[in-house]
């Protein structure tokens, strides 16, 4: 019962808190060798701007970095996504399940647009990879 009440009150779970402050994949503009693919979505007016840079070498994503302006859930989400796609073969990019973030990070229903926007960013990366 206490745990149930805590979940109702506490806006961020432990994983969200950890990913939010980790910053392991923040874009420091230092990239390994490879082709650079950049995708950016969102707007300041909506309070969320997400940018992912992937470095692709020999059909493999050898680095994933981000820049972001947004809430703790969005920062934790982008950190998770970059960790997931770093090292993936580009054909495996479809296996990333953004919707699982809802449960992993307990993203509240009023932030559903965040999930949609993150899916748009990944779609943009996939599209650019196909066009290359």
């Amino acid at each position: 019962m206490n745990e149930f009440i805590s979940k109702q009150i506490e806006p961020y779970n432990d994983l969200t808190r950890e990913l939010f402050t980790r910053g392991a994949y923040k874009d420091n503009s230092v990239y390994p060798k490879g082709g650079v693919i950049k995708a950016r979505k969102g707007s300041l007016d909506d309070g969320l701007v997400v940018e992912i840079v992937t470095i692709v070498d020999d059909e493999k994503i050898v680095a994933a970095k981000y820049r972001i302006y947004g809430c703790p859930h969005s920062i934790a989400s982008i950190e998770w996504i970059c960790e997931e796609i770093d090292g993936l073969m580009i054909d495996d990019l479809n296996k990333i399940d953004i919707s699982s973030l809802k449960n992993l990070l307990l993203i509240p229903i009023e932030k559903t647009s965040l999930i949609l926007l993150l899916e748009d960013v990944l779609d943009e990366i996939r599209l650019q990879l196909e066009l290359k």
Partner: protein
Amino acid sequence: MKRTTDNLIYLDSAATMPIDQKVVSAMTACLNNTEVIGNPSSLNNAGRNAMHDIEIARQKLANLLHTNKDNLTWTSGATESNNLAIIGAARFRSHLGRHIITMATEHKAVLGAFDYLEKEGFQVTRLIPDSNGLLKLADLKEAIKKETQLVSIMHVNNETGVTQDIVKIGSICREKDILFHTDAAQSIGKISLNLDQLPIDLLSISAHKFYGPQGIGALYMRKAAGCGVIPLHYGGEQEKWIRPGTLPVHQIIGFGVAAELALERSEDDYLIMQDLHKRLWDGLKNIPGIEINGTIKSKYPGILNVSISGVDGESLILLLEPLCVANGSACNSKNNEPSFVLKALGRSDLQAQSAIRFSFNRNTTHEEIDITIEKYHEAVRYLREIAPDELV
């Protein structure tokens, strides 16, 4: 599992003040006192003893406000006082006119009451302050019509600390025979007011904003012809039929002690607040893109509200933990909407969204302020490091 409160630095005193230990002692003693176990409305000894202590507390609050204790009605807090004052007074005077005036930066407890009256057929004017958060007196004068019966303008704003000139506002109303109500939840116990000499007809008070218990407040109502309220609740003769319901003896006693302490300490406390405000702002003001919300010239120094560019407010608050601060009013901070108060001051959505309110109490230390400054700098640095270049 509750979050740890180790190393907690509490800078959310405008939401609720930490209760004073003398207040706790008085309340505990009351709860343990077998002589005051009665219902204060009962005529037996236990009830009369309880009522005796309630009247002592009422006198203590009256001393703080420099008024007669018969002008005070106990309520559950400032929200109820605001509703009773605004809805009650507007209805009381509705046979004379149905136009009422407030300001867009009021607390929701005031704005909600005005919204309700509007649905009841009252005509409502909501004045917009200047970019400093101050009411333009010319706007008030212009808004007054012959049907106007009530003006409600808060004393100290709960988000920015901006302090309105309630003497001038009240005088304008008194000249026109209009009732003047002020929500003084953020000023009573902190700024000395002599209600018998001020042009104020109705005033809302909350105990927990000045070291008292939560759940208890009061409404001041001047005794004068044409000044009154129609009750919102029925079913008891307590508080002269204005506010029926069994009085919570221990809370009222705690409220009385808080009032007594405020009378002794408020001048010293004000100096403490000025010192803390200066120390914090001096430590923050050189950060590029930071700005203070509301004028610094006419404000209660226990509140400092700042916005910063290129930084999301919700993320900032989480990074500032274990500092307890607020983004906007506590009553408004769960809906993720930018503060309507800051929007009314002309702030953009982004500026309002990045706003943090720091509010102090007499136990706040220099060390806590210095840690706050350091953590704020660190948090801003991190969020700007991960932000897209053009936002920084």
